[in-house]
């Protein structure tokens, strides 16, 4: 209990950062993933090639490497820091934003894979009907195909969100003050390894298990009946 009293505030702060990283990266990856999917199913050869190439490259790169790329490559070598260099918290801000950027870029590839599978579940008659009504490719995608595709892949998107929640721990590699970084610190400063491990285990279970349950419920609720 001493540990909880001593580290309570820091624990809360660390898990809030974890949550922020998760939510922001989830939004970013959903957006980019949808764009990538649209590109991958588009009639334009160049867009298809670019998007497929991007997905295959990034998906097969370890996340740690993507994050380090952002930190060493973008921030240190190219000087893109994503934060106002004059502000007193610029280093923290910058590593946080770089982490969100890396997670979004990485997770978008998985979102795109899931969504493309979702597009495949939409019967061809749907987009044929859309075309016969005079809708163009983008309109058909936006109003007819993607809404049905999204509803078919709610459960996989939930798995991706859970994976993302767990992956945010990788941000500790560039010093973002999220849960894993605090865990390392607590292990060094206290001798209660088992309790520390338990705290973080339970902390993450509180984040991931409800997510899984919620997405399971949503996927049933919004399932496309065919």
């Amino acid at each position, binding site marked *: 209990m001493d540990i909880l009293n001593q580290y309570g505030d820091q624990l809360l702060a660390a898990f809030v950062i974890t949550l922020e990283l998760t939510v922001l990266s989830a939004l970013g990856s959903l957006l980019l993933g949808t764009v990538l999917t649209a590109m*991958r*199913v*588009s*009639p*334009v*050869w*160049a*867009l*298809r*090639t*670019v998007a*497929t190439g991007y997905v*295959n*490259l990034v998906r*097969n*790169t*370890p*996340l*740690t*490497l993507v994050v*380090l*790329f952002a930190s*060493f*490559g973008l921030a*240190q*070598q*190219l*000087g893109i820091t994503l934060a106002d260099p004059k502000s007193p918290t610029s280093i923290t801000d910058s590593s946080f934003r770089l982490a969100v950027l890396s997670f979004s870029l990485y997770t978008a590839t998985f979102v795109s894979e*899931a969504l493309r*599978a*979702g*597009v*495949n*579940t939409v019967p*061809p008659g749907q*987009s044929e009907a859309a*075309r016969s009504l005079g809708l163009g*490719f983008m309109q*058909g*995608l936006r109003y007819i*195909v993607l809404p049905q595709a999204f509803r078919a892949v709610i459960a*996989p998107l939930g798995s991706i969100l*859970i994976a993302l*929640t*767990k992956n*945010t*721990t990788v941000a*500790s*590699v560039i010093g973002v003050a999220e849960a*894993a970084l605090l*865990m*390392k610190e607590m292990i060094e400063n206290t001798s209660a*390894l088992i309790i520390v*491990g338990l705290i*973080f*285990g339970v902390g*993450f*279970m509180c984040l*991931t*298990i409800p997510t899984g349950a919620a997405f399971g419920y949503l996927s049933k609720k919004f399932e496309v009946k065919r």
Partner: protein
Amino acid sequence: MSGPGTTMRNLYDVPGPRGKALNIAVSVLCVFGLTGAGWWVWSALAEKGQLVAEKWEPFLTPEMWLTYLLPGIAGTLQAAAFAIVLAIILGILLGVGRLSEKRIVRHSCGAVVEFFRAIPLLILMIFCFQLFADYELFPSTELAVAAVVTGLALSNGAVIAEIVRAGIKAIPRGQGEAAIALGLGHGQTLRMVLLPQAITAMLPAIVAQLVVALKDTALGYQITYVEAVRQGIQAGSAYSNYIPALVVTALVMIAINLGLSRLATYFENRLRSGRKPVAMPVVEKVLVPET
């Protein structure tokens, strides 16, 4: 319509003259945009002196490979290989355990699987590392590799347990019923009838899981395990060429993983096109009707 998009069922008609012109225009724009972005990155890198030959030449020397990159790649492959073998064993035990007739076995296996699926691998690795260090379970030189392998085996084992369970459940019910009708017990039915069918069907999913394990060894970076990413960074700091070092490391990892993904697809296609399938439980979260 050729190219990578051909598996997509027709979301668009064969373009007419205007459509063709539009597609070409968008393609050209896209190529221009990419070239512009590429040129910007290139010139920014050149300005920082990352593109001069000295930064890249070390990759042609044996020292670079023997001291830095190859030990890293070996570490990555070694940890992933050990971990996946342990994970498959653990996964089969847990997966079968979840289908046990005894409620207590079923529920405890379920709890273990859910626990290791819920917590981040990095947290698990940090914990194992410290645990092994405190209780001196492994010699200090082997601590990192032990922690990486344990973490990977536990978390991948939990995933494989789910794959196994889904695989067994996807086998037509008649198989199990026939086995019982022949007088086989629950254990015999699983071992002699259901598992052999499930495992062949699971092969693609398991190879795909190997890619995940291989990528996740990079988490060992944070507990000082000698793997590809750590060695890439070390090389970068030794030759002060971070960007080239990271690029080369990324290319190596991507090549290995793409190879493995190919292998998974190959197994999948062989299973699909093989002789009339007894059970076709393709273990996938999304059902993808192939054309």
